[in-house]
């Protein structure tokens, strides 16, 4: 991997999701679908085939009535940096087509649909089930294609897709910065659709490297953890929970 370009320090965009605040309402899921032109089929109850870039998992502590506890966990793409953050993400390492790659400027794992030829190696490699395959062509019922967002291209049958941290919003923010004679994208100028929609304020998004950004402080919370940390995928999504069983479940390889 080559050095990042020489215009400013490289960023590392990431998310901190406070599970104590998350209510499991699902607004993040739908905000994501609406923003990113995610299609829907007649039957979406097979969740393995239901394309949901950001999926809300319902966890429980496994105890019987009435001691059962429930916690919701939203799972976007983790945008793994791999060990040392050089971009050795599980998916990037296996892609034979360079359809998915690690952006050293932002730390975002890209997915170029027109380059993908659908081998699905990345899906097998991803430990978070964050990638989805288009088994069918997307079809919008007559009339509904009118709400499609031009900032995100519509995927075709036979390619893999996943959460992009709403990268198109970074493109637009950056474009706007150029227009105003600057190159810096401020924290509030680039926020993902799920962060923006969350009614409980549980998702925070920003540059994990930037001490001025909210996420920088939040990730240092004593109850912060990442999913399957032992795999050393170095994910950029942190979770906070005061419940010990949730933290344990989040990293179930750790004794």
């Amino acid at each position, binding site marked *: 991997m080559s050095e990042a370009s020489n215009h400013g320090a490289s960023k590392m965009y990431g998310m901190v999701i406070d599970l104590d605040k998350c209510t499991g309402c699902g607004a993040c899921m739908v905000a994501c679908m609406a923003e990113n032109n995610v299609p829907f089929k007649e039957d979406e109850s097979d969740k393995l085939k239901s394309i949901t870039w950001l999926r809300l998992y319902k966890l429980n502590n496994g105890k019987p*009535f009435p001691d059962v506890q429930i916690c919701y966990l939203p799972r976007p793409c983790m945008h793994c940096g791999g060990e040392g953050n050089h971009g050795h993400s599980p998916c990037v390492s296996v892609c034979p087509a360079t359809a998915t790659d690690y952006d050293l400027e932002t730390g975002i794992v890209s997915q170029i649909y*027109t380059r993908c030829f659908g081998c699905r190696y990345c899906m097998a490699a991803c430990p978070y089930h964050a990638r989805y395959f288009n088994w069918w062509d997307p079809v919008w019922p007559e009339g509904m294609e009118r709400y499609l967002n031009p900032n995100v291209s519509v995927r075709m049958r036979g390619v893999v897709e996943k959460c992009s941290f709403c990268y198109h919003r970074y493109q637009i923010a950056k474009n706007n910065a150029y227009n105003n004679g600057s190159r810096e994208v401020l924290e509030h100028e680039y926020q993902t659709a799920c962060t923006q929609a969350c009614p409980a304020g549980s998702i925070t998004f920003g540059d994990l490297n930037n001490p001025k950004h909210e996420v920088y402080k939040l990730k240092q919370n004593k109850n912060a953890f990442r999913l399957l940390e032992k795999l050393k995928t170095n994910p950029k999504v942190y979770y906070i929970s005061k419940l010990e069983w949730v933290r344990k479940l989040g990293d179930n390889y750790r004794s």
Partner: protein
Amino acid sequence: MKVSRRDFLSLGAGATIGTALTPLPWKLMDDVSIWTQNWAWTPFPEDGEVTYVTSTCTLCPGGCGIMVRKVNNRAVKIEGLKGHPLNQGGICLLGLSGLQLLYDNKKRIKTPLKRIGKKGEEKFEPISWEQAISEVCDKLSNLRLKGESHTVAGIVSSKFGVLNNLFKRFLTAYGSPNFLTPQSGSDSYSTAMFLMQGVDCNAGFDIENSSFILSFGAGLIEGWGSPVRIFRERTNFNQNGGKLIQIEPRLSNTGAKADKWLPLKPGAETVLALGFAHVIIKESLYKKDFINTYTQGFDKWKQTIIDTYTPSYVSKITGVKEEEIISIAMDFAKSSFPIAICGNGKDRTPESLSHSMAVHSLNGLVGNINRKGGIWTVPLPDYINWQEALIDDIAQNGIKKERIDSAGTKQYIYAKSLLNRLPEVVNLGKNYPINLLFISEDNPIYTLPNTNDVIKAFEKIPFIVNFTSYLDETSVHSDLILPNHTYLERYEDVSTPPYFIKPIISMAKPVISPIFNTKHTGDLIISMAKKLGGKISESFPWDSYNDCLKKTLNDKWQMLEEGGFWVNSTFNPSKAENQFKTASGKFEFLNAAISALSPGDIIKPEGDNSVFPLILIAYDSIRLSSGFIESPPFLIKAVESTILKQNDVVVEINPQTAKNYSLKEGDRIILTTPKGEAKTKVHLFDGIMPDIIALPKGLGHSNKGLNINNLMGQIEDPSSGFNICSGIRAKIAKA
């Protein structure tokens, strides 16, 4: 010259080499691979200038501010409006899916339709607006001539606002008392506050600043109140160290996020609340200064509570342990800003009056009324100040008649409207028949319990005129559909979101121009009035709905048009003069009116428990819309597979109960209640009490799952007449 096989081969070889030296193969390969990425049927969304339109979401009573992103003339995304007092930029998943309702060519009604098939058969023919309006007006004139104006009724789902008032005014000027609106939990709470504080108000709960919430089934994060506001305030409440106790038979999301979930059988809430009151009084933990200075009837009420609702008695009846009753009551009373709230999930169905009053008594005991972190009396909107409708003799005769639902009569003295009683009275043919029914933005065939009876009643009504944008269960049973603009294509004032603590008006305004040949219901009422002529016409001095709205909102119009909302942000309930308007001028635990009502007791679910050993309850999920609006595809997609599997709804059952029936996860069962039968699958869930099974509200449209109202009945609250049914007896058998 003879051309040999060899020559052909040479030609072929030459052509091959020659072709390789042209761009043809490489260009073809490239173009074909591009072609596979650009199927003609893969949409290429048109780009263009991005603009935002500020409006208000009316998909639920919440009234959140929205910003709709447009690209040229297309609406592409709905987002929460930053700075709106209710949602502060947040938005729920239904609000986010609004464009799927706007752009649904299949479900939207595109032009006025007249029924030509049987009711429910979905056979309609398109007609012109002129014909549609003259057909309705002819019917109306005939009924009026026959002196039967009172046999016309109107159902309007919005409880406040200009459209609601126009409709009511139309019926009054025409000569019918039968203006019906659906009831919800806030109606029972407001009635309780009216009885105890003497004010006709909207109850406001200052969730954010309270320190302890004792919730009797209120689905704080299931969609109770103004959902996004409550979501946000619950987060702040939680961050400030507030404690939430959730009392309900099934572990909802609210229960999951609470500090404690207290499982309780449905119908036992009133007794438990009074049990808490007993402990607070006994332990002398009530706010004495408030009780002594601002209340009336405390001593007499106290005596009943002390005598009857002892922890041992309450424990025996409700099944909650004595220690738990005592400790929760003490924690509640010792907290600095405790709030007790009730509400069945999203609160779309009312509670019994005794339940609301028991809960409000708890708030009275801790003196947490009209102060920070407490319960506020928020004045009802007062911006609609029209002159009285002009009433001719026929109208005078008509409006004097008793209402079809008997609301406001001696029997149902506190009810303003009892829509739940309509199917029964129509089916029994009590009082008088209904000859013409208007329905505006409601789907009673779907939302009222005991669907079979509702359909029977609606089939008895000879002429149903439906002002709806969508083809739904009720519109297919209508005789005439006069399609309204959707909420993104029209103006509408939205006020009084349930349980908000400040007077607020928001405005919905057209985001795009109407897609189909639709008309604003408000405009239709005005044109019908004009066509009927006489005093009815004179009662409507406006050119159009917009004219009426503009004149009504008067000085607030410009602010609403530009900013989207008006709020009285300095409203302070403790400063409001005469906060208690009862006879004594105080908060009354007991008075003549309250004594006349039936006391708090267990509400028994319908059905014989020897035949139906289980209880089926309906629960709310924020991921499903259970009212007039059908859940759009994004919501159905977001529903868990433990709730909807393919087209089957899944019933939740405690693993212990499942064991009794030898049921495993995913087994098919037949579920029977006194009202109906359904085939479902089971999901074993530890978050539900044994012998109780639960189904979600809001499914059953478009063959997705089952409308739980098919299985539910009604229980009439003797004090208010509201339907307070939250469960019904049931049995299951392996299918």
